[in-house]
């Protein structure tokens, strides 16, 4: 069976698609969910993976640079949107964020290393807000943890992906960052050399483009590229 | 005054003991495994028997029936354990002073310097107990109990690890404490120690009291001799210290007649208990002449109790006192001894050692 290394944030959608795929083909993809960085390093170290779905362009670049990617198999699979969430419903005018925030915390993923954090920092910098909010930024090790800080009320605001915000009833999207404020959010996918089941992996990669799969991705809030 | 009664079943061993200890030293005597330590632990509050009652000087320490069980820390007993149980992390000095800080300031008790001097542990004060010799540990352990100013002293074979000379320095100290009114419950296998210290003896056997009473009675009972070790049977005479002769010998006046001893047991008029080993007493029908033995006491044969191994105990009545002699059957026959026959008991002065003289 094909072994898929996928960013942990895709679990819901990918599990569902895999179930459909199994029903149709009888092939059962084995999906290992972990942080993109861990997965990339494992692939570099010779992990028996057929496919890598990364939440970060940089880590896919890394794997590609290491020569692990099957030529021409890489493509951008999904896109996402960056939003400001809060535990209150009142919409926020982004340029007023520093005032609205006061001396409270703004929850983000690690701004220098985790993609969601990097995108968020870029967006805030682009809008000229970064310097003002920087001291108040609480960086979590991933988007989900940042969201949890908002959901529990520890931080009144947070910057997360739309996909995360959608599933958490305790938070509300109070603003959306303009697309041009940061590099496009992209989830690249690629087939990996020397995997245990290359043919089935290829089939699953193709299946990710079928309308059924696209519908599932979109239901989770992803943009399918 | 100490009253002890307890019963407990360990499964393989059961104790069922009751005795009363008047003031002074009460010796618990008995074979290994007889239950001595068990009894002492119950008095100390370290062992709670199924049923039991311990009353010390009027205060109820334990009464299982009424649900009274004073914790060990409030019983104010000074316990010299059978094994030393020193605190390994504290210096000898801190071990010795451990109990002092919890003791009543006003309570009487020996002083620190006096105790370390008596025990000969002055040079050890800053050492840790770990590297002490067996006897040194035992001495520190005695000192620790003494310095806690107890109102009752429990001593479980305190001198077993010590040499005769050292023992000779510690015993008078215990005697002085006893004479100052401190009740002592004393376990020992050395009958000399017991005879010297104890006014009361409780003889234990397999968890039961075999005999209990004044030391004189218990020790002169030929029936108990096997439990005491036959060689150790003897009589205890009540004596008063008399004149000291120019040659240094001291006359003790007893109901059986004067006895000259070489040890100085106290000022004239002091009342003492004098122990005569039955094996040390020689009998003669006629009054012997020209012997080195100075003590010749006349008496009447009262009872002859044959012993296995060709020996016999002969009890001589001398006024209100009685003296036990241990002879061969051959001598009994040769001398024609029989109840009612008059004869003399011969006793060497030097056979009376310090161990045989206890304060009355």
């Amino acid at each position, binding site marked *: 069976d094909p072994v898929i290394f996928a960013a942990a944030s895709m679990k819901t959608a990918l599990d569902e698609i895999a179930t459909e795929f199994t029903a149709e083909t009888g092939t059962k993809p084995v999906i290992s969910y972990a942080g993109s960085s861990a997965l990339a390093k494992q692939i570099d170290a010779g992990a028996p993976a057929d496919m890598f779905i990364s939440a970060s362009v940089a880590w896919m670049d890394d794997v590609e640079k290491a020569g692990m990617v099957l030529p021409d198999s890489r493509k951008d699979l999904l896109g996402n949107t960056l939003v400001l969430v809060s535990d209150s419903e009142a919409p926020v005018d982004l340029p007023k964020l520093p005032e609205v925030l006061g001396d409270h915390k703004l929850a983000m993923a690690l701004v220098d*290393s985790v993609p969601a954090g990097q995108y968020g920092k870029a967006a805030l910098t682009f809008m000229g807000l970064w310097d003002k909010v920087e001291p108040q930024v609480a960086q979590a090790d991933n988007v989900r943890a940042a969201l949890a800080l908002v959901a529990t*009320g*520890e931080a009144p605001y947070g910057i997360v992906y739309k996909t995360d915000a959608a599933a958490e009833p305790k938070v509300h999207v109070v603003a959306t960052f303009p697309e041009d404020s940061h590099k496009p959010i992209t989830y690249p996918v690629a087939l990996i050399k020397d995997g245990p089941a290359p043919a089935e992996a290829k089939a699953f990669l193709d299946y990710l483009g079928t309308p059924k799969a696209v519908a599932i991705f979109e239901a989770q809030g992803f943009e399918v590229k | 005054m100490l009253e002890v009664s307890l019963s407990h079943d360990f499964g393989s061993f059961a104790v069922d003991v009751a005795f009363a200890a008047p003031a002074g030293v009460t010796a618990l005597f008995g074979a290994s495994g007889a239950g001595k330590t068990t009894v002492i632990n119950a008095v100390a509050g*370290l062992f709670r028997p199924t049923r039991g009652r311990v009353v010390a000087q009027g205060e109820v320490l334990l009464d299982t029936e009424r649900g009274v069980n004073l914790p060990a*820390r409030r019983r104010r007993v000074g316990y010299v*354990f059978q094994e030393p149980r020193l605190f390994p992390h504290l210096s000898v000095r801190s071990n010795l002073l451990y109990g002092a800080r*919890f003791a009543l300031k006003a309570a009487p008790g020996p002083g620190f310097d006096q105790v370390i001097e008596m025990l000969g542990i002055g040079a050890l004060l800053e050492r840790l107990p770990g590297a002490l010799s067996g006897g040194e540990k035992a001495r520190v352990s005695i000192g620790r109990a003494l310095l806690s100013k107890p109102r009752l002293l429990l001593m479980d074979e305190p001198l077993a690890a010590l040499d005769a000379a050292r023992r000779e320095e510690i015993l008078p100290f215990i005697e002085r404490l006893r004479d100052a009114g401190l009740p002592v419950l004393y376990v020992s296998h050395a009958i000399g120690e017991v005879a010297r210290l104890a006014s009361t003896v409780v003889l234990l056997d397999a968890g039961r009291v075999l005999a209990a009473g004044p030391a004189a009675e218990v020790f002169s009972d030929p029936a108990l001799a096997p439990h005491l070790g036959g060689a150790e049977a003897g009589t205890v005479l009540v004596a008063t210290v008399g004149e000291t002769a120019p040659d240094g010998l001291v006359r003790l006046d007893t109901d059986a007649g004067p006895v000259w001893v070489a040890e100085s047991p106290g000022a004239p008029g002091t009342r003492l208990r004098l122990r005569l080993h039955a094996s040390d007493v020689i009998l003669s029908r006629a009054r012997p002449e020209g012997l080195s033995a100075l003590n010749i006491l006349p008496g009447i044969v009262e009872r002859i109790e044959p012993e296995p191994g060709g020996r016999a105990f002969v009890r001589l009545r001398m006024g209100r006192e009685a003296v036990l002699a241990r002879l061969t059957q051959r001598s009994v026959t040769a001398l024609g001894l029989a109840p009612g026959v008059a004869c003399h008991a011969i006793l060497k002065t030097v056979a009376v050692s310090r161990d045989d003289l206890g304060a009355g």
Partner: protein
Amino acid sequence: MSFLSPEEWTAVLLSLKVATVAVAASLPFGIGVALLLARSRLPGLWLLNALVHLPLILPPVVTGYALLLSFGRKGPIGGFLYDVFGLVFAFRWTGAALAAAVMGFPLMVRAIRLAIEAVDPKLEQAAATLGAPRIAVFATVTLPLILPGVLAGAILAFAKAMGEFGATITFVSNIPGQTQTLPSAIYAFLQIPGGELQAARLAGVSVVVALGAVLISEGVARRVAKRIGGA
């Protein structure tokens, strides 16, 4: 120190502070809980025992999440502590210390408990016959005798605190200068391609600092043990 950026230097100091405070503050509780578990016969103690083990059994993230829910400003315990004592854990170094203390607690308790169970009750009895009240027996006999265990527990907890990351970042996030400990900084470097060298550099610092502390405490512990072991 040019080998470390000022921020990293701050993270090193913060890690040390967090670990030290975590160990110091949890030690009395550690001893207390170890005593209860080793000595008490209360019926519900298995629950306490279970609770103490939880941070070991659960992934650190879960522990961090649980801390967030209970000790967060809106959490039941956190709210109470804030209202009554003005204590705040969220986003503060105190929170990092709390997380480290909780994560190290099972290790600390276990070592101390092991030592308590090895204490000869006969020595405590001896102290009692000498008139020592229960607290004095503990302070003058039990505690000195378990000192090697207490130190071992403290060393384990300290080392754990220096390395703790999952629960800490989940609970108090990563705010440079306030809650960014060494492990968070290391983690951050591992999240970017090519950051391994930087991560290794910080890991090296962490190892030197923490091991230094551990090996020094070891020396102390060894001397203490020797002193007592002479018995």
